[in-house]
């Protein structure tokens, strides 16, 4: 169903931030220059920490696109982490496609699988959707664990990926993160973004205004799946060993939701701030210990109850600071 073309959403509204346009541009350019010049000032330790930051922030951006903008709260993105990782592994270790072609293929495979998965899980609403998508990841975990071609539950090494220079991985990771921020900001400022936010805020009202809710949600789901698959393929390049229980683990959902909630749901800055907090905690508490997960869970609960808008939300509410303004405000009279 389409109505007459709605008026240009840009007209009559402005994208507001109390930070001036020049200041915002300077902050962003500064961030990009610092990241791009890392070989000049940082060693291998800083490089690996920044890779960790970049891919976690990119995963969080994708989770935020779903939960923060499309109203699709999911605990099943580890399905696409696993598919991306395994596409890279099978592509270059088993099929000899080469590292970077396999890397690109990861986005395609994850995006393709997202179509039927989305079509089925969208039949569940709210919390049941969140668990339904988790169920899909669980099915793939069990199936990959019995599949001899990919090394069963013991997994496989990806030898071709070991020849990749870690600095190349670094630039790909930073490039992916920047590309995803640009993609999310661009999407949100477009009509699709307006439709997404309308669905999140009032699904029935959005449908009543002619938004094809199902299609817009599926589009967001597929984009987030492809992005997640791509990031996961990069993680596998950087860390070339893969195993179903780790790839399809619920801990990916735990870390992504933690970063978005702590940083600020439904903001572009939020996942970036959340990823900084996450990486600091991880360096401090150890990679995957029980204590780390207890802290992630407890902090998520406390932030949700005390400051549900997260770091970015608090900054925007109290100081009017937003680095990437995408919210629309009514025109001043």
């Amino acid at each position: 169903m389409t109505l007459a073309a709605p008026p240009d959403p840009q007209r009559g509204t402005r994208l507001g931030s109390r930070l001036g346009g020049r200041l915002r541009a300077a902050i962003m350019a500064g961030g990009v220059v610092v990241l791009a010049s890392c070989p000049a000032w940082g060693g291998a330790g800083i490089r690996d920490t920044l890779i960790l930051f970049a891919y976690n922030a990119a995963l969080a951006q994708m989770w935020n696109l779903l939960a923060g903008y499309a109203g699709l709260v999911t605990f099943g993105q580890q399905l696409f982490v696993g598919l991306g990782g395994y596409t890279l592994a099978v592509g270059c270790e088993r099929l000899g496609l080469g590292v970077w072609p396999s890397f690109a293929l990861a986005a395609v495979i994850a995006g393709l699988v997202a179509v039927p998965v989305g079509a089925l899980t969208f039949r569940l609403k709210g919390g049941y959707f969140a668990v339904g998508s988790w169920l899909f990841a669980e099915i793939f975990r069990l199936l990959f664990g019995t599949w001899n071609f990919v090394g069963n539950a013991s997994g496989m090494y990806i030898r071709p990926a070991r020849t990749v220079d870690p600095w190349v991985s670094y630039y790909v990771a930073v490039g992916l993160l920047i590309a995803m921020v640009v993609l999310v900001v661009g999407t949100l400022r477009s009509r699709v973004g307006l439709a997404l936010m309308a669905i999140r805020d009032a699904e029935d009202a959005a449908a009543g205004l002619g938004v094809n809710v199902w299609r817009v949600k599926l589009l967001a789901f597929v984009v987030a799946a492809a992005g997640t698959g791509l990031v996961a393929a990069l993680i596998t390049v950087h860390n070339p060993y893969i195993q179903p229980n780790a790839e399809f683990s619920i801990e990916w959902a735990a870390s992504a939701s933690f970063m978005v909630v702590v940083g600020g749901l439904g903001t572009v800055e939020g996942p970036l701030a959340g990823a900084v907090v996450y990486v600091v905690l991880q360096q401090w508490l150890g990679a995957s210990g029980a204590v780390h997960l207890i802290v992630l869970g407890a902090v998520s609960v406390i932030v949700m109850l005390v400051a549900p808008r997260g770091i970015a939300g608090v900054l925007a509410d109290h100081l009017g600071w937003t680095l990437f303004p995408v919210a629309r405000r009514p025109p001043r009279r």
Partner: protein
Amino acid sequence: MQLFETLLNGLLLGGLYGLIGLGLSINFGTMRVVHLAHGDLIVLSAYFLVAVLVPAGIPPLAAAALVVPVLFGVGWALQRFVVGKSLGRGVLPPLIVTFGISMVLQNVLLLVATADARTLQSPLASAGVRLGSITVATVRLVDFAVGLACLGGLLLLLGRTALGRALRATSDDRDTARLMGIDPRRMYAVAAAIAAATGGVAGVLFSVTSTFYPSTGSELLLVAFEVVVVGGLGSLTGTFVGGILLAMAQLVGARLFGPSYQLVTGHVVVLLVLLFRPQGLLPRVAP
């Protein structure tokens, strides 16, 4: 005959699955919250029984009777002080909060009780009852009987008592219920406490029926979810029947394709239900 035996075992195990699903169903039915820590509450009660009460020298039956009121209290307190504070602001807050509780419970159990497999040693686990030419494990009969008794008790509570009427009224129309002098927050806490108490019963049964680990909570949450999806949202009887169907599907799958396909078969049946009958097999009919 073999198929009959498998189906009978599925029916009996289904009593336990149905009971596991009931807790999720009660929480969702009253406050529209999918309680992601429900599986962990079940595992928590199993650990409480096996690692605290029984080693303390309390006789197993008395210990089991103690678990249920304790879980009632835990459920009440969690709802009153944590989950309840996240309600009324959309889908995300209660999900994040219950997921966070799940992570904390699971990993605290991992730290305190280690990742070793546990189970409750009891004469029930090895005993069997002969029915004609087949033998059924006694523990499965107990699972089914207790699960069915819990369903009956809940239906009586909800259908025939003043508290049940208040709970149903809150579920149907929170604001009107409030006008009638019902405190919705109190009703939510009572519902969450009852749900946790069913989890306590399920935890006791599960500790005798199977081995468990700290991470079993996630598996049980998925079982509860599948039971509810197969049975249809919003009806306790439907949930219980869903448990029976899921258990039957799992055991038939294990028999046909081997034990490692037990869970996968159950998952595939759930996907088929989603594909062909997304409202579930016994949805609540609108009045």
